[in-house]
């Protein structure tokens, strides 16, 4: 009886649709490979504040967002911030070419199939999701706008302070 219950529970959970990433809800999980080959697993980052950014080589605002994210990485990594930039280019070489021109100090992973942006229900490029230490989506930003950076940074600091 208990085995049946557990089986049913697992089946229901497995069949459950992916969460759209709305604020307050648990962020969808992902485990993606970086250029070096190691896997970045969102579940393992529980306890840190995670800034997930969806980017592509063809997204011109990303040329401006990367230097800013580099600054965030330098300022807040030790305080508990992890930046994960998920690339959605169909071709890896396009992404690598972008990274040569606009280097990243933060973690970059690749999802050419687009499963992760679909799970997060990304509405525009670029999009960023700020995830708190409990794994919940704290804020969603669509597009990259210079005038929003101060607010986002304030939010990051607020989440980092919440230990």
């Amino acid at each position, binding site marked *: 009886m208990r085995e049946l219950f557990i089986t049913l529970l697992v089946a229901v959970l497995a069949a459950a649709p992916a969460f759209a990433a709305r604020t307050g809800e648990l962020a969808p999980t992902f485990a993606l490979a970086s250029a070096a080959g190691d896997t970045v697993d969102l579940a393992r980052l529980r306890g840190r504040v995670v800034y997930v950014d969806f980017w592509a080589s063809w997204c011109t605002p990303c040329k401006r967002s990367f230097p800013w994210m580099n600054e965030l990485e330098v300022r807040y990594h030790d305080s508990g911030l992890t930046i994960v930039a998920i690339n959605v280019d169909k071709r890896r070489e396009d992404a690598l070419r972008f990274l040569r021109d606009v280097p990243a100090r933060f973690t970059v992973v690749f999802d050419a199939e687009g499963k992760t942006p679909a799970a997060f229900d990304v509405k525009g490029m670029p999009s960023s999701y700020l995830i708190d230490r409990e794994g919940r989506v704290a804020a969603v930003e669509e*597009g990259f*706008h210079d005038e929003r950076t101060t607010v986002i940074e304030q939010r990051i600091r607020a989440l980092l302070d919440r230990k």
Partner: protein
Amino acid sequence: MRLPLKAGAAAPDGEAATDPPRISERSAALIAAALALPGILPSHAHAQTAPDEGVVALRYLDYRDWQPGARRMTVRNPSLYALVPLGSSFAVEGSVIYDAMSGASPLYHDTLSGASGLGVTDYRTAGDARLTKYIDGNALAFGVAGSYERDYKSRAASFEWRRASADRNTTFAVGVAATRDSIDSANGVARNQHRETYDFLLGVTQVLSSDSLVESSLTWSDGRGYYSDPYKLLDTRPDRRRIFAWLTRYNRYLPGPDATLRVAYRYLDDSFGDRSHMVEASWVQTLPRGFTLTPTLRYYTQGAANFYRDPPFPEGSVQGEPYTADTRLSAYGAITAGMRLAKSFPGGVTADVAFTFYRQRAGWRAGGGGSSGLLEFSARWIEFGLEKRF
């Protein structure tokens, strides 16, 4: 909307090659039975949000035309364009184009006499500017344009609203424009004449897939005023011109060959009677080392205006009725073949060179029925362009 640019040279026709060129021919070449059918100003500005990058572009076009045994006309067109984003919700753009025409476009029978005009060049300057405001997936654009030369001045203003759907895959546009032209011919035939035109545009762009999209637009134009060519004897045109144009364009990227196919079709109906069709195709081929090669083929066919009469002049003209022998309003077909090579350099710089060849023949009119008594007309133009994005 694109503010009307003035039409240029008068139609070639069978004038004897021995007549000396006259000053007014260049002016006449610049005056048009002018159609200023506006379209939206071709622009770097997108529907959705203010552009991220500014653009500065320079271009130089060298044009030459000829007919069998007849004189040549040459035109040199330097031009400049700039787009500057202002903050995150405004963009301003503008362009200036300069025409320097020399040589002669053979006119059939014009009223000027005496002036030698050899080696004289006529000039025209035209410019436009547009300011766009972006709010939340909408773009509102206000534009002005003007064209100035000795005997023809044109001023226009336009307004356009574009709106993108939430998923940015569908974009709608609606636009209006008003133009006022003043004509004062050097020979005194047209003294203080005017023309006013109003244009209305409706259009939609639909992204069909991750590799293809289509755009279709309808334009209605209603003009009243002076349309005749004062440098042509007996040329009398209606004082009202209504035009309807339907333009559809389709782009498809092909990952296999790493190339883009671009096709366009335009249907145009004109109360003057010269209905026309235009179809054009380009193949944008990516090559190694940042090069792009683009061949283009275009076919154009038009019917004659209701009041066009075949040579010999002035057969068919009736006192008090509209009449023209201007071969630009005759029935013919035309083919264009062009090739463009572009190279992109680091730092957002692109350079390109293009060569285009054009030929008009009455016999090429679709379905036959081209106007008789006309010489073949040919032209070629070479372009050099430089663009920097910043």
